[in-house]
C-alpha cells in the first residue's frame, strides 16, 4: 500500500454525523474557490465551488462557506457516509489565470 499522507491533518467522524473541513487561503485577490475530494489512487474530484461574491453555496449534502475577511473556507458534509472517506483539498484561483493553488489536504475518516 501507499505510505503517504502520514502527516495530513485528519478528521474522524462517525457515520451519520456532520463533518466540517476548514481551509485558510492566502491570496486576497482569489475570486473563486473549489473543494476537491481525492480517493486513493485517483485524481481530484470536483465537489463544489464558490465565487468570491458569495459567502455560502449549497449542493447535495455539501455546503461551502467563504469568509473573505479572514480568508477562510469551509466544507460541510451532512450525514457523513463511509464513501466520503478521502482526502479533501481546497483550491483557489483568479479570473486572470486558470491555474489553481491548492491548500494542504485534510483526511476524512468515517467510522461506523
Amino acid at each position, binding site marked *: 500500500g501507499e505510505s503517504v499522507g502520514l502527516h495530513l491533518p485528519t478528521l474522524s467522524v462517525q457515520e451519520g454525523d456532520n463533518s466540517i473541513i476548514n481551509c485558510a487561503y492566502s491570496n486576497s485577490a482569489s475570486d473563486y474557490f473549489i473543494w476537491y475530494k481525492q480517493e486513493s489512487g485517483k*485524481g481530484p474530484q470536483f465537489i463544489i465551488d464558490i465565487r468570491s461574491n458569495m459567502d455560502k453555496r449549497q449542493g447535495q449534502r455539501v455546503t461551502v462557506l467563504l469568509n473573505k475577511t479572514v480568508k477562510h473556507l469551509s466544507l460541510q458534509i451532512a450525514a457523513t457516509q463511509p464513501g466520503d472517506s478521502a482526502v479533501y483539498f481546497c483550491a483557489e484561483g483568479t479570473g486572470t489565470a486558470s491555474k489553481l493553488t491548492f491548500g494542504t489536504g485534510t483526511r476524512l475518516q468515517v467510522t461506523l
Partner: protein
Amino acid sequence: GEEVAQTPKHLVRGEGQKAKLYCAPIKGHSYVFWYQQVLKNEFKFLISFQNENVFDETGMPKERFSAKCLPNSPCSLEIQATKLEDSAVYFCASSHDRALYGYTFGSGTRLTVV
C-alpha cells in the same frame, strides 16, 4: 470521451533517464493543465495550454521539463535526466474554458525515479 486519460499509470525510471507522460483531454476541452503531486499532498501547478499554445508556464522548472499539446495527438510532459526528487504523481486536467465546473482531472501517472 468524458474522462481525461493519462498514460502510463505507473512509470519507473533510473536517475538520469528520460520520462514521458501522456494526457488525452476530454474532447472539446480547449485547456489542458499539468500538476505535480508530491507525497500525496501538495499540488504544484506546472503548465497549462490553450489548444496547442502554452497558456501559462510559470510553474515549469526551467531545466529538464518540457511539455507539448499538438493537434490530433495526446498532450505530453517530458522530463529529461530525471532526478530522485521528480518522483511524484503527475496529474493532467482539462477544461473547456476557464470556468471551473469544466475542470476535470485524470487519474494521474505515478513516476518513481530510482
